[in-house]
């Protein structure tokens, strides 16, 4: 067994540590534990607040003027549709951009500028994307307050992350495999499609899902493009108006009645659960796809 060995080694190291080192380790530990505790506390108190409202009918009801009977169904459906549509838009565009930058673009001033911009765009406040989406998608392209406009805006927000994750994944494909493919008389496109893409798919998909998990809580861009705060119907097409979880939560939090605050807490729990679910799917998908790649 390895435990006793590592423990003795641990002890040996600890004995050799000086006082400042130990102090530094302690500060580090506090810095790690404190935010975790805070997070746990927030989550725990939301859970306690939300507990009475967390039942099936909460998930399957429409919003209502009475807090006890208000549910989250349109927001849940809206968020799900929004995320799916966002992924459908962001994956091909992001992967295409990454393929171009990694495989086709010659190093030039222009590509250097583009690369710099992608890095910067990842850090731009999301409300700016909302304003851009409002102007371009909702107004100029005439999509209005539709699901499609929301998804396009969120896709825009995700693109830098998707592009960076895809480029990272493309770079992990060993050059020897590309050479093998070229030496078999495959051209560039067939090499990409037959050899490179299957290998980097897990990386691309996990990148997309993880960035989706972050985007799921985005409120500002959706409010900016005019997602509704009170919706009594389910979206029936990409052109429908919609609401989403964070907007519904925001709406409830800003009501004066205490009952709605309970609803907001319950909405937060649902949102966090959805986020964890997406993260779980990412991990599962990665493991599964990676098992098909044998090293």
């Amino acid at each position, binding site marked *: 067994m390895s435990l006793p060995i590592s423990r003795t080694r641990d002890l040996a190291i600890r004995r050799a540590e000086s006082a400042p080192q130990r102090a530094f380790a302690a500060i580090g530990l506090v810095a790690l534990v404190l935010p975790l505790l805070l997070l746990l506390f927030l989550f725990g108190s939301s859970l306690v607040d939300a507990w009475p409202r967390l039942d099936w009918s909460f998930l399957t009801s429409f919003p209502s003027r009475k807090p006890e009977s208000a549910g989250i169904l349109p927001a849940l459906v809206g968020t799900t549709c929004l995320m799916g549509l966002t992924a459908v838009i962001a994956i091909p565009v992001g992967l295409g951009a990454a393929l171009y930058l990694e495989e086709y673009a010659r190093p030039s001033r222009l590509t250097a500028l583009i690369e710099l911009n992608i890095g910067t765009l990842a850090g731009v406040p999301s409300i700016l994307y909302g304003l851009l989406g409002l102007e371009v998608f909702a107004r100029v392209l005439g999509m209005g307050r539709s699901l499609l406009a929301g998804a396009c805006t969120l896709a825009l927000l995700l693109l830098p992350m998707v592009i960076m994750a895809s480029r990272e994944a493309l770079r992990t494909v060993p050059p020897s495999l590309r050479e093998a493919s070229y030496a078999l008389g495959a051209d560039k496109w067939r090499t990409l499609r037959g050899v490179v893409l299957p290998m980097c798919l897990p990386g691309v998909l996990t990148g997309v899902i993880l960035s989706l998990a972050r985007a799921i809580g985005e409120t500002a861009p959706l409010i900016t493009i005019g997602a509704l705060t009170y919706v009594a119907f389910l979206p029936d097409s990409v052109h429908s108006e919609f609401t989403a979880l964070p907007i519904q939560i925001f709406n409830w939090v800003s009501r004066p009645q205490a009952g709605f605050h309970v609803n907001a807490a319950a909405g937060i729990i649902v949102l966090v659960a959805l986020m964890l679910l997406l993260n779980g799917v990412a991990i599962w998908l990665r493991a599964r796809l990676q098992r098909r790649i044998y*090293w």
Partner: protein
Amino acid sequence: MDTDLAPSPPTTPLPGGGPRPTASAAGRSAALAPDDAATRPAEKMTARDLRAWFGASEALRGITLPVLERRVTAIIGPSGCGKSTFVRCLNRMHEVVPGARVSGSVLLDGQEIYAPGVNPVRLRRRVGMVFQKPNPFPTMSIRDNVLAGLRLGGERVADPAGLAERALRQAALWDEVKDVLDRSGSGLSGGQQQRLCIARALALEPEVLLMDEPCSALDPTATARIEELIHELRERYTIVIVTHNMQQAARVADYTAFFHLGELVEYDRTDVLFTRPSRRRTEDYITGRFG
């Protein structure tokens, strides 16, 4: 002239599925009876004043060398002398490296492969290559690896199972993998992977097979199998093999070229080069005084 390098009419078909007898010791020495002026075959490929650069550094400094049809040509020389670069110039793989450049001329059946109209993709179907490090495709099964060349080339394979079997038999791998064809090629041993890569190259029925140190990562048994394989393939393919192992060159090659510092020092029949080298540098190298 056909600048698109359409494949010349196929010569002999792949042999049928039956197990092939391995070359006996007697058969081997008969096969390696040195050519004389009358039996010396045509030049399948010819390099003329071939120069290659990586950026500004010149890796090949004017190589002129024939590759004779259905013979095994070995290339030997100290590390870094340009052996790999040379074989990569023969199927235009050198230009895949960013910043790499070639000048001079390489003929395949008398056609210039560096002519403007030539499609390197078609050329590589005729001049196959096996790399120093086995590189099976990790996302593909053993069978799909063998068929990868055809599939990546966008061809529909009429009889995939039969084709895979023939290529694997030729590469002397069939008996070891016939029950695990759907498993990954990366699960095989290094020597098996290398034979899988050979099968993958053979499935395309190239006319010339370039092998860059195919045995460098292999144990003696696997090496012996690959040498045996080269003996069998020699009847139908033109083979260029890079090797660090002079015994191996002496065993498998009809002709041997000695490279040093990007130059061709000496090219001759293998028996002549190893017993009566005409250059001092060759002699020093094969007797182990440098390199």
